[in-house]
């Protein structure tokens, strides 16, 4: 069995962005300390459910970089004690406004190898509309600092933003390439129900149409390609050899442990989701109760379906011959109808199924044929 990933969720931000519907809250240091304490306790109990190896660690959020000094150390120590992971990659998400020299040094010291920076845009107007705390200058500084400190740097780029121009996308890409950013996550804005952004839209904020968003994506894609970034997943681009190993586990049905509020884990064919409320989570851990709210056992069909669903997001596609061997079926028989229906949009060769590049943006419609 291959090594698992470890995901740790930090639900704290200095303020909430207008488009965000993730579990995050502005937390006082006291609240943060109580949470990290609970997290550490949960990590220790994790020993009971997993004894295998782990080789990637991803601290996401929220904004892990806004945690009090020393928090990451506490978390890493607990993980070392519990799982003795042999890390090939250790990512921490950071926001430009809370990533400074001191933070960089602290993270470096904790063993972090990769920084994922929430840059989103280099247009100050756009950043403001999103409710981001940083401006373009801060973002640039953060990127330069991270690169200078020797981290592998991934920068987020949001597409299809209100008022976004091709120029914004172009300057982001040029900057990233020029500064040695190894990885770009370029994902399209989705207006989630109940967020301030959804209200802004109701009140007349104009978003690009689907067609315009698609244009912007295509533009970002071609610009990044020209600059030497390969697209390896629907929304992810990188220099050769710089794929995010941790995220790859999600897309290839690998195993991952999850700690923290609202975290999702998968070990073997068991999936579990931790409860989504910070206070409830903390209280549950403190009282020694289980923190996972839901768990499900994946059936053979679930595994097959999810493998296809996730694998089709990858430009390498999904290795269906291995899948077929594992579950003793012939893919081309089981999915004969879907293969016929999707014929024009896919490449099916040498036991691998993938969506043609030009249809990456309509992947859902194609995946829908296989589920």
């Amino acid at each position, binding site marked *: 069995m291959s090594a698992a990933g470890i995901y740790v969720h930090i639900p704290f931000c200095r303020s909430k962005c207008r488009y965000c519907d993730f579990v995050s809250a502005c937390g006082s240091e006291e609240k943060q300390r109580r949470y990290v304490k609970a997290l550490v306790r949960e990590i220790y109990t994790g020993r009971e459910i997993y004894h295998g190896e782990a080789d990637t660690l991803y601290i996401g959020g929220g904004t892990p970089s806004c945690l009090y000094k020393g928090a990451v150390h506490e978390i890493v120590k607990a993980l070392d004690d519990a799982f003795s992971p042999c890390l090939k990659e250790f990512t921490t998400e950071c926001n430009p406004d809370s990533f400074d020299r001191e933070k960089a040094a602290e993270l470096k010291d904790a063993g972090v190898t990769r920084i994922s920076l929430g840059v989103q845009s280099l247009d100050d107007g756009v950043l403001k509309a999103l409710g981001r705390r940083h401006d373009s200058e801060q973002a640039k500084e953060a990127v330069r600092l991270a690169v200078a400190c020797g981290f592998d740097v991934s920068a987020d780029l949001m597409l299809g933003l209100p008022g976004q121009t091709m120029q914004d996308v172009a300057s982001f890409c040029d900057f990233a390439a020029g500064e040695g950013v190894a990885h770009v996550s370029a994902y399209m804005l989705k207006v989630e129900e109940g967020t301030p952004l959804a209200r802004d839209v109701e009140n007349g904020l104009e978003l690009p149409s*689907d*067609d315009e968003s698609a244009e912007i994506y295509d533009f970002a894609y071609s610009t990044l390609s020209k600059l030497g970034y390969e697209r390896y997943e*629907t929304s992810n681009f990188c220099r050769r050899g710089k794929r995010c190993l941790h995220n790859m586990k999600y897309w290839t049905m690998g195993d991952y442990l999850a700690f923290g509020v609202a*975290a999702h884990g*998968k070990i073997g064919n068991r999936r579990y989701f931790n409860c989504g409320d910070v206070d409830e989570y903390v209280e549950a851990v403190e009282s020694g109760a289980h923190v996972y709210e839901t768990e499900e056992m994946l059936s053979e069909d679930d595994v097959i379906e999810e493998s296809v*669903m996730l694998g089709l997001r990858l430009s390498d596609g999904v290795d269906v011959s291995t899948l077929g061997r594992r579950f003793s079926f012939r893919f081309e028989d089981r999915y004969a109808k879907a293969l016929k229906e999707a014929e024009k949009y896919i490449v099916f060769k040498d036991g691998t199924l993938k969506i043609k590049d030009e249809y990456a943006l309509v992947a859902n419609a194609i995946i829908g044929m296989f589920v």
Partner: protein
Amino acid sequence: MPKDQSRIRNFCIVAHIDHGKSTLADRIMDVTETVSKREAKEQLLDSMDIERERGITIKLTPVRMNYTYNSEKYEFNLIDTPGHVDFTYEVSRSLKACEGAILIVDASQGIEAQTLTNVYLALDNDLEIIPVINKIDLPSARPDEVKKEIEDVIGLDAENAPLVSAKEGIGIEDVLKQVIELLPPPRGDYDKPFKALIFDSYYDSYKGAVSFIRVFDGKVKAGDKVRFFATGKEFDVTEVGVFTPRSTPVEELSAGDVGYLCASIKNVSDTKVGDTITLAMNGAKEPLAGFKEVSPMVFCGIYPTDGARYNDLKDALEKLKLNDASLMYEPEVSTALGFGFRCGFLGLLHMEIIQERLEREFDLDLITTAPGVSYNVVKNNGETVLVSNPSNLPPAGEIDHMEEPVVKAFLYTPPEYVGPIMELCQDKRGTFLDMTYLETTRVKIEYEMPLNEIIYDFFDSLKSRTRGYASLDYEIIGYKESDLVKLDILLNGEICDALSLIVHRDKAYARGRGIAEKLKEVIPRQLFEIPIQAAIGGKVIARETVKAMRKDVLAKCYGGDITRKKKLLEKQKEGKKRMRQIGSVEVPSEAFMTILKFDK
């Protein structure tokens, strides 16, 4: 013991829709203490959910009541009737069971289309009519003018017409007094052989087919062997009873009575509405005059959204047919929609009501095609075929000419809307016949018009052009030759049979364009570009394009939150179920109805 028929009054209430029939019926039941307070619900006789919600009566409902007047006990049989033009045949059936009718006229609305239709029906059946002015409590009530209207337009003496507010319970006793004093009692012969008219029937899973009857002569009781004239079949009566308004068994029904009869009849078609029942031994020789067969005028295809529920739809139609003899249906197959039924209705409201009942009472999801009429198609070889489904139209080369049903339309309106109405009628290929001022504020306009123009968007246009003031009534006057063409809709190059229409050549371009535009709105973007074309014969007259989808992807898939993604795909899958695959194109069920509802 023969019953004293002079103490019986059989009557119905007729009125234009919404003039207050059902409410007056309720009040009469209150006054006669037919229904205890506990049971009293608004509009008690309207038992169908749809009737209560829409505030309309669809089925006729009889009820027996007792009333004491001048120390004499009287027995009333009241039959509540529908007011809408589509259900005229229901009215005419109930009239046959009565000697008199209460004519309700709304004190502010005055005489309307259906007021007249129903009065003429009542007069045709030799009924005595008592005019009643209702809704006098409304501030806009103008009882004196309305009385004059009744005298001028209908020619009934309205001087002593009771002034009533059924809602407030005002004047109800006056109405009952006139029922006793002015309406004639039945004059049947108790000693003659039993003879009764079936005016309605329904199916009860325990009792079998139940016939609603009006006894004209003689008597009948459980145990009698009866014969039905239409079929000649004989049955043993198992139960007779009256409506209180619940079915309540009685010992005997005799001359003058209105009630029901059960005889373990398995097949509803054996209890044909309009048929006469008599005794098997020494029965009557001649049947009573029956009813005109009603023929459906409006047709549409009805399909289950989920093809697997075809048999459920079939069962549901069978059950509805049991108490709605006017509903016609036969199986049909569409390449686009699969197995379904071509159904015939009396009018658009009837169609809507059947659809609603199918969906609600039988929990079915339906796709309905655009309503049409039936055409006479005269072929080159002289043969004539009746076509109600555009797909069954013979090839254009074989058709000599076609004829379409034509109606005489009566429109009643305040004078200020005469202009817009005439414009509308002209636009709908109408031929002006006549215009009369019924009074200074009311005009009657007559037009000859093709029925297929009336069933398409006419009511809505009429209402919006006259701010709801105009009303419409029509009668079929026959078929007329017309320059009709079949309009086909092609999706991605393939004809979608369920979207085909027969239209007048002059209207074809506008309709074709309208439908193509509308379809462009309702067909979701798919992975490829979809041309939508409207064509006559092989000639394309309109084209729209649904562009290929550009974006349908989950932006992020991080944190291992697979459930979100899965849910999204499942939702997508659910949505797909409501789609019909036409060739390579997925078309939402609503698309088939939208071609009805475009407005220019």
